[in-house]
């Protein structure tokens, strides 16, 4: 944890309009509710979205002078430390696929060189199939290429088109990404005179609007959010960014409604050891996803023989999966990609003996060996966990001196692996909007200044959430016309390229 740095204060802005309100907020004493430390930007949440926003601002000449504080209740140094000491046979169960657009953004903000590449697995094949009808699509970059990238952000659009890589996405642990973003931030601290104020292991306890105007020399803090931390400090924010995940405190403070529904599904995650890698060469690999009526099961490649599981299923099934002994749990994961949904349903109801049942059923079940992932041989101890799956979308991403990014703004089903990616694109867009505001001399906390961010991301995310939600629903049906349609369906989707686009983050901008 970095010590609080009272000696830094808001830099004098170059334009007159900003100068009026900036003044000389010079503080050399500890902040309190009556004497808050004043920041241009306070970011609550040091997850992928928050950290990448801060790095984007600090890497850009127009915004690198902004006085920024970032607060996270977790001990962020632990994440970096854990990554540095992790063994090549030990992977965290929280992994995400980073699309080429996300990678390009991480390049732009200088974070990708800090990624531990030995812990990143690019994949260029994807097998997706329907657990009821057996319809499948197998695609690689060559076939998936050729439909337009719909991401409007110039930072990422140029990178996508210039990508010579045949990669669909890059799998890595969320901790590798967070640790790279932290390392980039530390490198910037060393090279600039505007270090980041980082409050790690510190919770935001309260946010309220400033009521009193400061002394004539100071900033008029009326209508500024005042953020009270668990260590007693109070920060005043010209712009308060909520990057604090699905149960966003900042969103609640801003009175922004978030609408949607719970899927009544849990995402079961685990770190898997496979019989063999999904592809011989380290730079190519295959991701697998099978749509079962209870939800999709996905096996995504990590380096070597490792893979990560994301299995969306009923809460009762998820609870049962977590209670199984290793042998039975391994059998269930193998069954998820091979056995009929009737068998799986039954296997979810028995408390033990899955290994024996699965061995028998595999002898009588026809499946396409070329389509399914290599056999799972082991599950990392303690890596089986479950997360509730929901869909939520905030009514707006911006308010007076407030902006939301990442899961604080939208939460989606993980079936397309786009939650984190869309959060990174939010960060890229917000950083751009802030930079535009600074360049035009506007107050970065002004609703009008923030408008551009809402425009850039809201409709795109809405389309993405809708597409993901519909896919979940279409594949939850077990019989009837929807299934007949589906047996034609994946074929149609395949030709249309929509599903491929979704997985590659390209469907987010609508048609």
């Amino acid at each position, binding site marked *: 944890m970095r010590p609080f740095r009272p000696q830094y204060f808001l830099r004098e802005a170059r334009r007159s309009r900003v100068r009026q309100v900036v003044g000389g907020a010079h503080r050399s004493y500890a902040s309190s509710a009556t004497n808050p430390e004043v920041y241009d930007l306070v970011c609550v949440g040091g997850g992928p979205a928050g950290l990448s926003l801060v790095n984007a601002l600090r890497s850009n000449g127009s915004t690198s002078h902004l006085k920024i504080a970032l607060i996270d209740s977790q001990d962020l140094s632990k994440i970096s430390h854990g990554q540095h000491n992790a063994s090549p046979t030990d992977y965290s169960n929280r992994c995400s696929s980073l699309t080429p657009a996300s990678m390009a953004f991480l390049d732009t903000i200088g974070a990708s060189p800090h990624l531990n590449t030995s812990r990143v697995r690019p994949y260029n094949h994807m097998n997706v199939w329907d657990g009821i009808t*057996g319809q499948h699509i197998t695609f690689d970059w060559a076939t998936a290429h050729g439909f337009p990238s719909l991401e409007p952000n110039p930072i990422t659009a140029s990178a996508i088109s210039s990508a010579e890589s045949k990669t669909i996405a890059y799998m890595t642990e969320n901790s590798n990404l967070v640790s790279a973003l932290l390392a980039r931030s530390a490198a910037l601290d060393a090279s600039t005179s505007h270090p980041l104020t980082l409050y790690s292991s510190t919770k935001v306890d309260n946010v309220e609007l400033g009521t009193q105007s400061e002394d004539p020399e100071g900033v008029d803090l009326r209508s500024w959010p005042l953020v009270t931390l668990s260590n007693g400090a109070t920060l005043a924010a010209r712009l308060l960014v909520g990057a604090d995940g699905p149960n966003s405190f900042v969103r609640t403070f801003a009175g922004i409604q978030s609408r949607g529904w719970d899927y009544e599904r849990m995402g079961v995650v685990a770190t898997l050891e496979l019989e063999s890698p999904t592809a011989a060469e380290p730079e190519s690999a295959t991701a697998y996803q099978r749509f079962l009526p209870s939800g999709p099961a996905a096996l995504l490649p990590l380096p070597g023989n490792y893979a990560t599981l994301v299995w969306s299923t009923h809460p009762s099934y998820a609870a049962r999966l977590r209670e199984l002994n290793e042998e039975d749990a391994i059998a269930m994961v193998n069954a998820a990609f091979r056995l009929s949904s009737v*068998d799986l349903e*039954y296997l979810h109801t028995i408390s033990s003996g899955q290994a024996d049942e699965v061995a028998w059923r*595999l*002898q*009588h079940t*026809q499946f396409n060996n070329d389509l399914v992932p290599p056999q799972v041989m082991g599950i990392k101890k303690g890596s089986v966990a479950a997360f509730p799956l929901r869909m939520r979308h905030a009514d707006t991403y911006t308010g007076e001196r407030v902006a939301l990014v990442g899961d604080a703004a939208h939460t989606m089903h993980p079936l397309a692996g786009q939650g984190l990616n869309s959060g990174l694109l939010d960060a890229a867009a917000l950083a751009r909007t802030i930079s535009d505001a600074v360049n035009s001399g506007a107050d970065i906390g002004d609703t009008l200044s923030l408008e551009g961010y809402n425009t850039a991301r809201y409709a795109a995310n809405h389309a993405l959430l809708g597409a993901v939600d519909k896919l979940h629903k279409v594949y939850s049906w077990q019989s009837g016309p929807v299934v007949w349609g589906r047996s034609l369906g994946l074929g149609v989707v395949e030709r249309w390229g929509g599903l491929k686009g979704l997985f590659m983050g390209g469907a987010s901008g609508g048609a």
Partner: protein
Amino acid sequence: MAPIHRAVRARKAAQYVTRQPQRCAAAFSVLNRPPPSYEGHIPLTTIERGAMAVSAALGSLWNPYRGDLISITGETTATPYFIYRLRDAMLRDPTGRRILRDRPRMTSKTIDVKYLRTLPANTVGRAFFEWLEREGVEQDSREQVKYIDDEECAYVMQRYRESHDFFHALTGLPIVQEGEVALKAFEFANTVLPMTGLAMGAAINLKPAERSRFWETYLPWALTNGLKSKEVINVYWEEQLERDVGELRAELNIEKPPDLRETRRVLREKRRAEKAARQAQ
């Protein structure tokens, strides 16, 4: 455990040799018929299957005692959908799964009639024995399944066929055509196998009095009981022989229909008495 059950277990899976899963059976022509999936299997093309289904169904309507034709009708109409439904019904049930795993066969060789005779009167085994006696039939080997491509589904068909006489014993329905039609209606509602529905078409062969009995009594009984009862394919008969038959019926949620043989006997006697009375006049 009944000795017979042990015998059955020992013989399990004798002829359905487990194969490695094969790719979906692709379309083929009569010139390149694929190899059989199990002993006795005859792969058919779609056209052959359709033609056989139609001719066998018509044939068995005209001649309901042609068991071979009924078998063919059953097999050729059970795929691609219905036999999978029945197999899945078994896979959803713990006992059904055990049957599929053990693959017991019920033939005159595996069911020991002498042992059945020694069982107490209220048992399933004894009811079966008495039904055999009353109907004057033998638990003979049923026709071997040959036209169903999936080896597991072929077993399901075989099992269904071999369980049929136990359905007779459980319901007490006689093997006269009227009883068969009623039982088929029950099986249709319970298994949804199309052949059982087609076999109900044999109702057109019934005499007017039988037909009205069918419509008024046995068809309603068959449909309600077939639908409300558990899947009868999931009964491990070999394990139920010493069980109280009323208890099993209650467990399966099946009511016993009016005794058809008794009804027919009473009516026959009444007619005879009426005739005698008329002649005496």
